[in-house]
């Protein structure tokens, strides 16, 4: 079932992380049979993927598109473009060895609204998450070593690897990124969590130190043990390199501020900050910027349609020696409204389209005519429709109520989950509590049933117990005023207003006056950050593992509505926000201790405790279980996983390894 990750000869370099043994938690692949292997074929595929190393330069095969250019003398031969044979990365194929050629029609939002639409699927991180999702594996890097107390990481790069313009990729590129881009924080982000180690006794943080051992080895040293370093890099920093030769031409550190500003203006920016953010962070829109991605833009962004072409220096091949990617070109087409993608998928134009679950019926009914199949990727959230309580609302009475588990339970059992499932999720979202699904790590028995029945009497009973007496239709607060709740949601969320309307209906049936506020993004952000929300249906909590991206389950910074004030407190080290108490504080304590552990079993242990606190408290109530994200995949495309996990940590579609997506018959795929 599991596809073995690319392993070269010697065992120590480039193994999975110490956490690979998260299997200790009974970690079955996160999405059942993760790669959706279709029975009989899986053994063949596994056999195909047995190859560990390309042994001879003759077995390298490049796309005819590039072979032409080599013939014309425009490009060096493939063996010279790829890394040294033993350092070439072999990407396992999902179903079959592919064929070079074809154009992938790719719908995307405009560069301003959706830079990640193309950014995530084409990303090449230093280390990326494995297909099973249980840890990270080397990607751009060839491997790593770490000392026993997790204070020194040695990262090995690939010899002979080159940027898309032919320049060598060396440790100088990693150092350039660290010394001149990340540390001076020139692209508008502060130094990422990954690069800090915490003193277990004092809680003080110290920044990492980078050094280049040689052209292909980088050392990252920490003062204190830094577990999960590479995982955090994969999530926060993603890549950890930048083309030194190109950066030297544009950074003011090297060419002076005046010259740098001139370049910024030429590129259409008013100041250096904007330009650097674009050049160093959202850089994949610049056609002259050297990259490591499988495809690179042939023209700058701005037009409604932009073509990306294969990178001749891409460092991966398939097990048979074909240089990846299989697909020659991407045609990025901008759309404004999701209905456009729907129509053009129905028509058969877009080869892969991503959809919310609501489009399921339309897509399925037209699948035959449109020549595609609908794939369902599981999300990492704990629910599809749920509500979060802001645990520190400005109103004192509400605060007391929210902190009382009985109030939350009342609001949980007052709602008919079966009905909501039909109305909001086409009957597919299980009528259950916000929880982790069976088969996934940290699943807790009976969690899904907790407070999940539809029991209006019990709700009334609990509310009466809390002293919220009824006067006519409505319940009163202790101070005599009518109890009012406000549910806030963003006005441009899909199905905005429908779920909230139903909640209002159910809450009012137990006597709580409810108002629904649909606000635009900016306003929502303001309300959230200042802690003024009461209840909100925006956002989902959960995630792959609390140690990877703890944001929604542990208050580490502002942003997640249920713990915004506490997160602010933690991030500002007490200067702002509100200090948490009780179980919420316990979350932070457990997280701190978890971060200091070096043993995977111990980490999992703490993680489970964190999860159990969530099960007990249910600060966010879920009403319908998770529903998949849908992908429509053209019948002419292969190697796209039928089922796997859809998560931002795994870079959405990127988790399917787009470089090995192939057209079965590229000839029919022109524009």
């Amino acid at each position: 079932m599991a596809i073995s990750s690319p392993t070269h000869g010697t065992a120590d370099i480039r193994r999975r992380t110490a956490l690979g043994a998260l299997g200790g938690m009974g970690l079955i692949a996160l999405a059942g049979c993760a790669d959706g292997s279709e029975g009989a074929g899986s053994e063949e595929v596994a056999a195909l993927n047995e190859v560990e190393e390309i042994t001879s330069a003759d077995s390298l095969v490049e796309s005819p598109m590039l072979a032409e250019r080599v013939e014309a003398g425009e490009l060096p031969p493939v063996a010279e473009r790829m890394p040294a044979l033993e350092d070439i990365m072999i990407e396992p194929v999902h179903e079959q060895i592919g064929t070079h050629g074809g154009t992938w029609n790719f719908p995307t939002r405009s560069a301003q609204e959706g830079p990640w639409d193309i950014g995530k699927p084409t990303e090449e991180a230093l280390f990326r998450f494995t297909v099973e999702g249980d840890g990270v594996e080397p990607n751009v890097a060839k491997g790593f070593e770490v000392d026993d107390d997790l204070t020194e990481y040695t990262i090995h790069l690939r010899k002979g690897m080159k940027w898309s313009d032919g320049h060598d990729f060396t440790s100088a590129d990693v150092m350039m990124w660290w010394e001149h881009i990340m540390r001076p924080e020139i692209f508008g982000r502060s130094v990422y969590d990954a690069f800090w180690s915490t003193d277990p006794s004092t809680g003080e943080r110290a920044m990492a130190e980078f050094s280049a051992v040689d052209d292909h080895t980088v050392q990252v040293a920490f003062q204190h043990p830094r577990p999960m370093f590479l995982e955090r890099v994969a999530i926060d920093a993603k890549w950890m390199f930048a083309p030194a030769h190109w950066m030297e031409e544009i950074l003011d550190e090297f060419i002076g501020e005046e010259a740098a500003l001139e370049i910024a203006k030429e590129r259409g920016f008013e100041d250096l900050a904007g330009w650097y953010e674009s050049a160093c962070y959202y850089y994949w829109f610049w056609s002259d910027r050297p990259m490591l991605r499988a495809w690179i833009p042939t023209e700058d962004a701005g037009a409604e349609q932009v073509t990306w072409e294969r990178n001749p220096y891409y460092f991966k091949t398939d097990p048979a020696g074909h240089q990846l990617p299989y697909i020659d070109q991407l045609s990025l087409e901008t759309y404004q409204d999701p209905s456009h993608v729907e129509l053009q998928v129905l028509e058969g134009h877009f080869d892969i389209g991503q959809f919310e679950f609501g489009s399921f019926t339309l897509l399925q009914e037209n699948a035959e005519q449109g020549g595609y199949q609908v794939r369902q990727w599981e999300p990492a959230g704990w629910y599809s429709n749920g509500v979060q309580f802001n645990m520190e609302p400005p109103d004192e009475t509400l605060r007391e109520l929210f902190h009382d588990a009985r109030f939350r339970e009342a609001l949980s059992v007052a709602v008919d989950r079966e009905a909501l499932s039909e109305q909001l999720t086409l009957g597919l979202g299980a009528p259950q509590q916000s929880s982790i699904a069976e088969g996934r790590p940290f699943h807790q028995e009976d969690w899904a049933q907790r407070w999940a029945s539809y029991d209006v009497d019990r709700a009334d009973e609990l509310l009466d117990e809390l002293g919220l007496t009824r006067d006519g239709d409505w319940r009163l607060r202790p101070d005599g005023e009518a109890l009012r709740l406000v549910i806030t949601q963003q006005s441009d969320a899909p199905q905005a207003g429908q779920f909230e309307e139903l909640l209002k209906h159910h809450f009012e049936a137990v006597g709580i006056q409810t108002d629904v506020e649909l606000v635009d993004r900016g306003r929502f952000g303001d309300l959230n950050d200042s802690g003024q929300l009461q209840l909100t249906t925006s956002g989902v909590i959960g995630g792959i593992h609390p140690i990877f991206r703890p944001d929604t389950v542990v208050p580490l910074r502002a942003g997640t509505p249920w713990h915004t004030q506490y997160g602010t407190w933690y991030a500002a080290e007490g200067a702002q926000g509100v200090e948490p108490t009780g179980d919420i504080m316990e979350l932070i304590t457990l997280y701190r201790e978890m971060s200091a552990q070096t043993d995977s079993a111990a980490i999992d242990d703490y993680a489970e405790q964190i999860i159990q606190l969530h099960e007990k408290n249910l600060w966010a109530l879920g009403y319908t279980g998770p529903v998949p994200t849908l992908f429509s995949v053209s019948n002419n495309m292969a190697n796209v996983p039928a089922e796997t996990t859809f998560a931002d940590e795994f870079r959405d579609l990127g988790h399917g390894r787009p470089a090995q997506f192939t057209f079965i018959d590229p000839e029919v795929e022109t524009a």
Partner: protein
Amino acid sequence: MLKYVLRRCLTMIPVVLIISVIVFWVIQLPPGDFVSHRVLQLQQEGEQLSAVEQEALRERYGLDDPWYVQYLAWIWGILSRGDLGYSFAYSQPVLAVMERYMATTLIVALAAMAFTYLVAIPIGVYSAVKQYSLGDYVFTTVGFLGMATPNFLLAIILMYLSYTWFGNPMLGLQSPEFSGAGWSAARVVDLLGHLVIPVVVIGTASTCELIRVMRGQMLDEMTKQHVMTARAKGVKESTNLRKYSMRAALNPIVSTIGWSLTAIFTGSTITAIVLNLPTQGPVMLSALMAQDMYLAGAWLGFMAILTVIGTLISDILLAWLDPRIRDERRARA
């Protein structure tokens, strides 16, 4: 006459300035600003901006000044350097963003206008001449239907019908295979094909109105004294129509041309969103929602100026064409 034109032109300037102030004020009226919008967007991407970083961003964009200060700085920039300001969302000067969509906007608008006038006038004449005939009723009904259906729904229905009947929903202005390719006959045909739905959707409302006006005017003119005299004298009917009735009937129509353009510009925003047209409408809408002050302000100001100019042209044309007013002026002078 000249004095009248000059006077109107001069009064145009303070009007435009006042409009720009109001527009600017209205844009920043909703609570929050561009940074709050951006912060939320980043959060949804998994990024975080600390409070300090947000403040820095606000300062960088000048959003921590009160709105009138921002406005004055902006106006000064326009007047002194022709600098329309900076679009935060696009990280580019506003002018660059506007230029990008100007061409397609004009194409769509002019095509819609051409459709409107070229279709409405003949139909109006026909309806007047053959009043109460089947053709009259059919055209009137179709026109009314187009006008009575909200644009956005009409657009999506037409798109879906285009998909079911022709297998191609005709989104956007060009089929993907032609982008980047040179201009050829095939490409022009493709463009025209894609223009059908937008033009029909945008144009039908004003077409209908125009048909009715034309029809009404023609009916008025056709029963006038001089026409009846000519008819009695044996002048051919078609000449009668052309020389006497139509010319007079066209007067009020011509004078409303100035407004049609702006009406089409503004009316096409929703349609452009639904049909995925790369025109200014959707850009402006998202700029407005994100409170991208200068981009939204520039677009709105531009449209306001167009309207003012349109009114001016209409008034001038009216004054010039209408012999009564013209004679009155001469008499007075």
